[in-house]
């Protein structure tokens, strides 16, 4: 038996050596590894951000597309002391999660934004907001009753005047807010109401009304687009950027900005990276280069807050941005803090509610 163990140990050591040297081979001073979205976002980023960044600074970006499970991977890396990413995208809901677990380096604002030009609510201790995205109601305009226009969550809930199949996302976030808006709660009081037991009951009671009319509860953004384009549902909240896919494939669809949930995406630096300076360099470039950002939003309507972004932007395009003043005014700002605090408990109730 000891012979077996010795054999096993030999194989294990050999494996470790191979894996270890593979990591060393990647270590190159002028290269950072960036974990960002894949798909079309990755393709556009390569063109608009990575290439020009390398030209400007000489730092090459090795992009790894992480579609999902980014946080579990990050935690595993930080815990094992083997951090493979130097910078990463973090969604609004994942940001507080990583802060709680201590997975990010603190942002050095004397380097990223020395003149304090970024809006205060985009400068977080462990991350910088680089893009806004909204979950907004998307309407198939060809399926609307004649002469009617869907303008709010109250309309979405109104199945008499707006008949037709609908879908919602299969998670509690945003949906509870939408329900309260439909129930007449003013946008600036949503989270105050949701923080109380009565308010939570009120949101679920409102959701009870719409539940029988929801065809399906989508789990990925791509699925929501598919549902709308197949005519599986006529009215469905999705990410604002997804409208581009629909419109470009000739499907008459429209965004209802009113009542949309605006989220921020962050750039963060995994704790323990060996390229802290280079990574910070990229965070600065990605969040403050207005001309690059203007180019980026011609491909994807996910703008950031680089000073002067809207200067000289085509007005028609500007009107499609979630941060465009008129659009921002009618949306609410989704509270990552509220969900970081309450998601576990609410999600359990949400699952129970779905099963009823």
């Amino acid at each position: 038996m000891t012979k077996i163990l010795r054999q096993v140990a030999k194989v294990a050591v050999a494996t470790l050596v191979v894996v270890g040297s593979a990591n060393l081979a990647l270590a190159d001073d002028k290269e950072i590894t960036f974990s960002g979205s894949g798909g079309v976002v990755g393709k556009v980023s390569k063109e608009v951000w990575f290439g020009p960044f390398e030209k400007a600074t000489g730092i090459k970006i090795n992009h790894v597309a992480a579609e999902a499970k980014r946080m579990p991977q990050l935690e595993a890396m930080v815990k094992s002391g083997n951090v493979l990413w130097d910078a990463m995208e973090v969604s609004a809901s994942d940001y507080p999660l990583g802060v709680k677990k201590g997975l990010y380096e603190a942002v050095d604002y004397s380097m990223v934004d020395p003149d304090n030009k970024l809006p205060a609510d985009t400068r977080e201790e462990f991350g910088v907001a680089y893009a806004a995205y909204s979950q907004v109601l998307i309407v198939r305009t060809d399926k609307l009753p004649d002469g009617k226009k869907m303008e709010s969550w109250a309309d979405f809930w109104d199945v008499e005047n707006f008949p037709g199949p609908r879908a919602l996302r299969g998670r509690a976030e945003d949906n509870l807010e939408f329900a309260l808006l439909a129930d007449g709660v003013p946008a600036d009081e949503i989270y105050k109401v949701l923080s109380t037991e009565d308010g939570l009951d009120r949101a679920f009671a409102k959701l009870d009304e719409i539940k029988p009319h929801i065809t399906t509860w989508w789990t990925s953004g791509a699925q929501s687009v598919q549902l709308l384009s197949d005519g599986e549902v006529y009215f469905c909240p999705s990410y604002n950027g997804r409208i581009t896919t629909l419109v470009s494939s000739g499907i008459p669809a429209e965004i209802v900005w009113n009542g949309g949930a605006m989220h921020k995406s962050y750039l963060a630096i995994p704790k323990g990276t060996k390229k802290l300076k280079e990574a910070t360099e990229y965070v600065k470039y990605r969040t403050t280069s207005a001309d690059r950002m203007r180019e980026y939003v011609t491909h994807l309507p996910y703008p950031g807050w680089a000073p002067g972004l809207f200067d000289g932007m085509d007005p028609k395009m500007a009107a499609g941005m979630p941060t465009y003043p008129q659009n921002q005014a009618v949306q609410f700002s989704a509270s990552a803090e509220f969900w970081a605090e309450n998601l576990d408990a609410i999600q359990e109730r949400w699952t129970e509610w779905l099963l009823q």
Partner: protein
Amino acid sequence: MSTKKKIRSTWLLWPALFMLVAFFLIPTLDILRASVYDPEFTTKHFTKLFSSNVYLDVLWRTIRLSCIVALICAVIAYPISYFIVQRPRKQQIFFLFLVFIPLWMSVLIRSYAWMVVLGREGLINAILIGLGFTDAPVKMLFTTGAVYVAMVQILLPIQIVTCYSAMTEIDLDLMRAARILGAKPWQAIRRVFLPLSLDGTVTGAIIVFMLSMGFFITPALVGGRKDIMMANLIEFQVNQLNWGFAAAISIVLLIGTVLCVIIIKRLSKILTGRLVGGGNA
């Protein structure tokens, strides 16, 4: 075989054993550890799990769905496997090839394909409306029925292959012997062939059952709001970095699966006994 030879031949098992220990046994024990140490010994994850109805409710739904999928697969695969076994050797290879083709496509793509077929404006509804059978589209997608259809289609090849390979082991002369001894054709099948092939069928059904217990993409894509699987709950907790709680749910799922497999085995043993000794046809 001499003892020396025996020992030498067990060497052949070592790579597989090593893989099992390194990539299955150790991680499983680690999950068990994570469910009760966080970081000190605690039962809080299991207390939380059992204090809510959600998790056991979803476990029950997962078991029920997996049992039904395994049963449907077994019933459909049995005659198909029997048909293939009866063919000449060359035709068998051709038919098995046909069975294998769908296995080369990803589960995700096959699930999306079912959405196109079963949808409101999908293939079946277009045909039904075109032929005038119905005016309004029939709701097929986003129902539990759609989950059965898609999962059976995805898992059927596995059942057929397992069942087929068990059937090839059966000496068809035994059936002839039964006939010579006076059994009617149906009796020969029921009391000789069926009991001999049942083991393979049950093995296939157990594999299908276990695979179903871990499904989550297909039910999420084609199912209704109540088609939530244990794996969906685990995925959510992992993404929230609640490793301990995710581990506790996994352990409950594992224990549930093992108990079910034991029960299925027991039932099949009883059934085989009944068939062999069974009364008059």
